Every structure is written in structure tokens, then in C-alpha cells.
């Protein structure tokens, strides 16, 4: 018995160490972003807000932030719409070819991003398209859809298809059923999908790097600033804001996902 609890204690200690190492680099940068020193080094020199204050008057950074917002919102909305189609087909229809079709839709999850990036680049330039935020959105859509599908499949699995049948039997049109039964039931999963895909788009670098042309998103802007050692503290401040935003968005997404799960449990 004591041998058992000893191994259990070792396992718990390992897990705590693992999680600590997982978070250490993520939390280290915000610490340095408040440090009153031009280079990130120990020991800490003193507390300052000046790196954050200098971001406020930075027009290039604000332009990049606006670009990221446009790309993120577009990618989130469009990928959630496509995700609803895929998730509905996966959970409500059984047909030959479904497996192949859904693996193709999920494939960007596992492909190296550089492969997706260069093939899109060649096609866009080949078609004579100017690189712009639109090309970034098209690329982000590809990698956001699989996450949307994952979130929404569990949303669809969470409610009984007989509710939709009942609605139709009671004389509601297909569109009415969609608007008054399906979408309200799916709402928490839809919100969760929007938040997750927005965060993924906000954080994505490789596709944006290849496809953004002259309009950088925030990660591309940060990449450009890394060339200048003197800008590092500002980059750390901006990066800390981005990480904080991602954490808040993902926590909100998780709370909505939980809510969708609870809704499912309440079902009679």
C-alpha cells in the first residue's frame, strides 16, 4: 500500500514539474516586459510600464493589430460556417465517402504549415492575385476549419436530432427549424468555435508571413521587429498582451464548451 502511494506521489510530482516547465517560457516573457532594462536578463532591474506606454503611440503596430482583427474575425466567422456544414454531415448523415471527405477537411491539422503556405503562394501569384489580407484569410480558413469541426461535432452530438424532426413535423420549414431549433441548441458550441478559431488566426505566423504582402498581421509585425535588438522590450510587451488575450479568449471558449456539455446532460 505504501509502495503504491509512493509511486503515486512520484507521478504527481512529475506532472506538477511538467506543467511548470510547460508554463515557464510562456510566463517568463511577461516578467521581462515589466523589467526596467533594455535586455531581458537576470537579476530583474526594477518595475516599469514604459515598454507598454511606448506601444500606445506606435502607428505601425496599431495597423498590424487592426489587420489581425480583420483577419481573425473573418477567418473565425467563415470557418465556423464551413465547420457547421462539415460537422452536420459527419454527425447526421451516413454515406459512402464520408470518411475520405472528412479526412481531407481535417488534413491541414497535420500537414506542415510551410507546405500549405508555399502551395497557396504559388497559386495566388499564378492567378495574378495581389497578396493582401484576403489571401491571409483564405489561408487561415484552411487551418481554422478543422478546429471548428472538432468543436462543433461535439455540439451536434450533444443534442437529439428528434428535436429537429419534431419541429418539422409541427410544420416549421427547414430554414425555420435551422433558425429556431438547431442554431439555438448549437449556440454555445458556435461561440466556442468562433473564439478558438479567432485565437488560432491571431497567433498564426507562417501562413501570414508568406501571404500577407505589405499588410502585416501582429505576429508578422513582431517577426520584423526581432531584427532590431533595441526593440526587444517592446516586442516582449506586445507579445505579453497577445498571450494574455489568447488566454482570456481560450478560457471563454472553454467555458462555453462546458456550457454546451451541461446542456447535453440536462436532456431528459
Amino acid at each position, binding site marked *: 500500500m505504501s509502495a503504491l502511494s509512493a509511486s503515486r506521489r512520484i507521478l504527481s510530482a512529475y*506532472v506538477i514539474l*511538467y506543467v511548470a516547465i510547460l508554463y515557464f517560457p510562456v510566463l517568463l*516573457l511577461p516578467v521581462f516586459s515589466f523589467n526596467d532594462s533594455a535586455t531581458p536578463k537576470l537579476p530583474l532591474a526594477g518595475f516599469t510600464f514604459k515598454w507598454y506606454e511606448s506601444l500606445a503611440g506606435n502607428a505601425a503596430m496599431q495597423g498590424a493589430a487592426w489587420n489581425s482583427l480583420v483577419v481573425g474575425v473573418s477567418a473565425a466567422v467563415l470557418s465556423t460556417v464551413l465547420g457547421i456544414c462539415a460537422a452536420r454531415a459527419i454527425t447526421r448523415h451516413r454515406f459512402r465517402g464520408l470518411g475520405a*471527405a472528412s479526412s481531407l477537411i481535417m*488534413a491541414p*491539422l497535420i*500537414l506542415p504549415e510551410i507546405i500549405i503556405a508555399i502551395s497557396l503562394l504559388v497559386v495566388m501569384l499564378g492567378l495574378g492575385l495581389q497578396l493582401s489580407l484576403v489571401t491571409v484569410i483564405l489561408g487561415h480558413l484552411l487551418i481554422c476549419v478543422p478546429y471548428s469541426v472538432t468543436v462543433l461535432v461535439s455540439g451536434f452530438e450533444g443534442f437529439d436530432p428528434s428535436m429537429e424532426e419534431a419541429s418539422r413535423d409541427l410544420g416549421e420549414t427547414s430554414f425555420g427549424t435551422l433558425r429556431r431549433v438547431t442554431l439555438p441548441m448549437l449556440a454555445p458550441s458556435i461561440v466556442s468555435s468562433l473564439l478558438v478559431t479567432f485565437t*488560432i488566426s491571431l497567433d498564426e505566423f507562417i501562413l501570414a508571413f508568406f501571404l500577407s504582402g505589405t499588410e502585416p498581421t501582429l*505576429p508578422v509585425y513582431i517577426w520584423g521587429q526581432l531584427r532590431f535588438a533595441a526593440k526587444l522590450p517592446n516586442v516582449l510587451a506586445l507579445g505579453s498582451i497577445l498571450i494574455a488575450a489568447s488566454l482570456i479568449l481560450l478560457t471563454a471558449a472553454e467555458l462555453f464548451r462546458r456550457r454546451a456539455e451541461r446542456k447535453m446532460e440536462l436532456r431528459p
Partner: protein
Amino acid sequence: METSAPTMPAERAAGLAPVTRFLRTETGKGWLTISPPLIYAMLLLIGPIIVIVANSFWSQDYLTIDRTFTLENYRAALTEPIYRDLLMRSLFVSVTVAFVTVILAYPVAWFVSFHGGRYKGLWLFIITVPFWSGYLLRILSWKVILGYKGVLNETLLYLGVIAEPLSSLIYNVNAVVITLAHSWAAFAILPLFVSLEKLDRSLLEAAADLGDGPVRRFLRITLPLTMPGIIAALMIVMIPTVGDYVTPKLVGGKDGVMIANAIQVQFGKASNWPLGAALAVSTMVIVSMVAGAIVLLLAGLKRLLK
């Protein structure tokens, strides 16, 4: 074309067009529902990949592309020492990262599955969150940690473990492996956790009742039965990491350059799309072959253990 579901006699009498009739079958409805994301993936994933494969058989003629078929790009990609070395290094890095990640993540997935209780969801959330935030920043952070005047060196100096900063921490393959393994750690947990959740606990109890010790139970029951999760975890780490661009660029230095950096150069400064395309296609084909070999090897190991 498959029209398995019976159509209504009335519809047949009405003489509906075959397409309309197909769309009313279960198969037709399914295809119609999945078509928007499917067509999108066809147009923006399959289409462009076909274009890249085609490009890899063409050649760059100054500013234009010469579309006569040639294998010259593949000869360069597979035999020129610089590309061969980069490919081998990328493969080595991605396979090492995949195994390190899975071995380190397995006990954590085990802990969450067996001892997570009602907090399993919360545990998974806590572990996977760093994966979704600050891709660039996390790599930058490792640069700050491993650098010559970095956090690790400063700490070791302060503790008196070393007399002068170590220059071997950063700008080499090890730094790339450490950074990538940290980046992908969370992602590997998910398939491992799912396969551990599916494991029938009564099998472990039965084995314990029959006198098997913990090591034997693990080797003969848990390991073979969670092999699908292990294989999935290895693949979802190995395949994307082979093409990582940022990590080698920030912490790899000149000894840690990987194939993605060479591909980027061909699409950027060097402006030789066909060669870049051939490098990309070669990487994908070779990593798929290595992935296939690992799957076969582990499947064989599973049979051996049972």
C-alpha cells in the same frame, strides 16, 4: 454513383432529373451538406498541392518558368549535399522530437486519465492552453532562456555551477529539439489521453488478481492497447515539425538550419520555385515513408508484446 436509398414512386413518376433524385437520397443529402467545406479544401488544398507537384517537374528560366518535364530539381534535392544534409537533419529532429514528446507526455496523460477524477477536463485545458498561445513568443522565450547571456547561463553562473557562460546551449540542433519538444508537448497529450480513456480498467484488475506486477501489466496490457494513441501522437508531432521554419531560424543558428528554411529561400531571395517545390515534395514523401515505417514497427511491437 451510389443511389442506395429507395426513391418515392411518386417522384419517379413525376420524372425528376437524376441529379435532383440523387440529392434526395441519404447519400445525396450528405454530400450536399459537406460540399461547402469539401469544395473549399479541394480548391485551396488539393489544387495548390497539385500545382506544387507540377512545379517540381519544371524549371526556372530567369523570370519565367520553363514547363518542359525535368527531374533535375529532384536530382538536386536528393543528391546535393547541402539539401541532403538539411533533409536528414529535419527528419532526425522531427523523429527525435516526436519520441521525446510522447515519452514525456505519456505519464501525464496517464495521470489525467487515471487520477484526474472530475477534473479531467480542467487538467486537459491547463495542459493544452500554452500550445494555442504565442507560437512566436514561446520560441523567442527559449532564445532568451538558452542564449549566451540568457536566463539559464546567468542562473548557473549565480549558483556557481559553471565559471563562465556555456556557448553550447543555443544555436545547435539540441536547442531546436528542446524548443520544438516544448512547443508540441501539449498536443501529444490528447491522443494519448483518448486511448487511455478507452482502456478497459477491468483488464488491469484481472491481470493484478492473476499476479501480474505493475511492469508486466503495463507491458502486456496498457502499452499494446494504447498503441493506436501512441502512434497517433507520434504522427501529429512528427509530420508538422519536419517543416518548422521559425524554431531553426531563432534558436538553430547555422548548425540547426532545417529544410523549411531552404524551401523559404527558394520562394524568396533565390526565387527558384521549381527547386523549392521539389524540396517540399521530397520532404513530404520522405516523412510519409518514415512515418509508415514507424507505424509498421510499432504495430509489430504490439503483436510481440501481446
